[in-house]
């Protein structure tokens, strides 16, 4: 059982939870993730990236968007409540090195797992250009924390409500056109964004790491549900990743695989909304 120590709502459907997980807090490194299960009997196992950790407090920070049953259940929890199962830290840590100039691009919720990587890259002595993008101003998260670390921070929104009205690929391309060009790029965000970021850096041959968030069951290499095609080879995101060379990932296949259970999820999600609404009404009626 993992007690929730702190909760914040970062935007309409994005939540931050700080939960007790002393061993994971000690061992985790940038780039790693956990598998979370809200109910051991019938709950699903979903991968969530670790946004931060505090070994002294024995806690890890999870940031998630409410998209399916489990994330909705987690979003409805309060400080003092518990999460039944958290397994981790999983996956290979990010390769942190002294590259020179690193451009880190975060889209939407992807900004959360990007944060510990930016932290580690900064600590390793790199110059950091951070690009954050979202649909609108209210969906930009962790801006202050990123600003504190970045040598240069660029914000874009799709609707122009904050920062530049652009997709992240625009400033990314401009950064790549600079002389000297960046030495390393890290992108975390929705698959479609990572795909186009990889296309943006490809002509400039800037090495580009992407962090993939696929469907998983065990998260330890046992099921292979998370497999992706990288450079023509099958890789498991859970044990070979989650980070891969963005120039080699078959994003189209990955996106199709992510939609494998879409119909089921929508039905479960709908039921979940009904249940949560019913619970709220019951609470209000008491």
């Amino acid at each position, binding site marked *: 059982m993992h007690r929730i120590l702190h909760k914040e709502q970062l935007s309409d459907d994005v939540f931050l939870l700080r939960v007790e997980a002393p061993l994971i807090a000690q061992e985790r490194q940038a780039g790693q993730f956990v598998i979370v299960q809200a109910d051991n009997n019938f709950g699903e196992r979903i991968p969530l990236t670790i946004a931060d950790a505090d070994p002294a407090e024995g806690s890890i920070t999870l940031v998630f968007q409410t998209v399916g049953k*489990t994330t909705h259940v987690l979003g409805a929890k309060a400080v003092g409540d518990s999460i039944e*199962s958290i397994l981790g830290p999983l996956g290979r840590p990010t390769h942190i090195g002294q590259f020179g100039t690193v451009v880190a691009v975060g889209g939407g919720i992807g900004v959360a797992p990007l944060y510990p990587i930016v932290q580690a890259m900064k600590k390793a002595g790199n110059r950091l250009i951070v690009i954050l993008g979202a649909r609108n101003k209210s969906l930009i998260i962790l801006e202050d924390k990123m600003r504190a670390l970045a040598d240069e921070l660029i914000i874009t929104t799709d609707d122009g409500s904050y920062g530049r009205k652009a997709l992240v690929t625009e400033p990314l391309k401009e950064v790549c056109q600079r002389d000297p060009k960046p030495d390393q790029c890290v992108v975390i965000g929705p698959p479609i964004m990572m795909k186009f970021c990889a296309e943006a850096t490809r002509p400039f041959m800037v090495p580009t790491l992407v962090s993939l968030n696929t469907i998983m069951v065990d998260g330890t290499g046992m*099921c292979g549900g998370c497999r992706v095609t990288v450079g023509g080879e099958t890789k498991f995101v859970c044990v070979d990743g989650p980070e891969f060379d963005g120039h080699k990932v078959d994003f189209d296949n990955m996106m199709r695989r992510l939609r*494998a259970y879409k119909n089921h999820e929508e039905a479960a999600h709908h039921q979940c909304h009904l249940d949560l609404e019913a619970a709220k009404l019951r609470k209000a009626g008491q």
Partner: protein
Amino acid sequence: MSHATPESLRQDAEKALEALQGKRLSPRDRMAIPPQEMPTQSAEDRRGNMREVALGYSQAQARLEALRCLQCKNAPCVNGCPVRIDIPAFVKAIADGQDAEAIALIRRNSLLPAVCGRVCPQEVQCQAPCTVGKALKSVDKAVSIGRLERYASDLERASGGCPKPAVKPETGKRVAVIGSGPASITVAADVRREGHAVTLYEAFHKPGGVLLYGIPEFRLPKKIVEQEIDALKAMGVVIETNFLIGRTRKLQDLIAKDGFDAVFVGTGAGLPKFMNIEGENLVGVFSANEYLTRANLMRAYDTGHADTPLFKSRKVAVLGGGNVAMDSARMAVRLGAQEVHLVYRRTEAEMPARVEEVSHAKEEGVLFHMLQNPRRILGNEFGLVTGMECVRYTLGEPDESGRRRPVEVPDSAFLMEVDTVIVAIGNESNPLIRQTTPGLAVNRRGNLIVEEATGQTSLDRVYAGGDIVLGAATVILAMGEGRKAAASINALLAQPS
């Protein structure tokens, strides 16, 4: 094939038993007793439920089957048993109506009789050399030792379970056991008995390993696995779930920082093999591990309650010929697929699956396609599986496994229309422990290298057994390995430190 009801099998056995009452049975008389059929749910019924297929012998059937045993002096069956259960003795006890005595005899050597009675490949182990089977010229007519083992252990469970094994006074020594499958359960029990503290680490949210996530309810009820785990808890074994050694804690830290005196690695063969053919990452292609884990451990078949989704399948192809392939095919039947095709590139004779599983699968309507294999998997514009391009094979010369090598027939390509492909061609060892544990020696397949006699790895105080050493094998072999490693650990910890 007509389905004999459990009731009719019991009545027939009672009559036959009465006819033998008071007779001194010659070997010829014993061999004339008809082999007792296992009562089962009818194929029609079981296609629609997850309940156990084999229902177990009645006492009359068990006694009659046990009377078929010739009590051979040289007991070839014992040599066929990886843990050398005193088979003639326990079979005789059942024949004499001494069921409690029978289970006590089994328990001397086996820790998991209810499991092994159900999932051991008896026809290639204890029942293969059985004199009765040899005399009747068919291993199918050997004494059904496995069914008798199951009978004795089921009676024991019905009467309140096995007595809690005695635990010696606490020694103050501590042992970490990694994984909670059959090898680990065995080690935990054997080491705990000696009075050492045992902590068992499991990555999943429930302990039991392959017995839980892999073998389906209809072949091994989860209740049985839970009882075995409960027995460990009653002995004082501590179980840590959601704990992945190598990630949550490094193996070497267990000894260096956490004060464990020895470690057993029983993490199994948990990395699914794929065929490496075109189209394998299309939507609708699953490893058997994923398919079975969703249905078994995550209980996805219970669509009203479970959050874990299942892929809706109409026509399923299962690739492979082992028990896992049979489990997957039979699971697909139960999950409502209209057609389930089992595709294997050799013939039925080479299939590693238990004979009983093969015949159960056929009874349930699984369609067998021998000497065929897909060359690529085909998909549509949405990336969904639409079929497989298959080729035919003939059998050539035997290969290194001793089985005849399948040889492709030229120009034999044909199309098989399916929307789901389940790959059940085996598992490799999970790389996690070896990647995160410096100095741990592995072979080229990634299996841990251990000393044959002791189960010790290349690291001091670290032992291993089961599929992580053997490659994908069986429950009973894992248990045998566990016994050996546990004996070594107990010997190590008995030395004055």
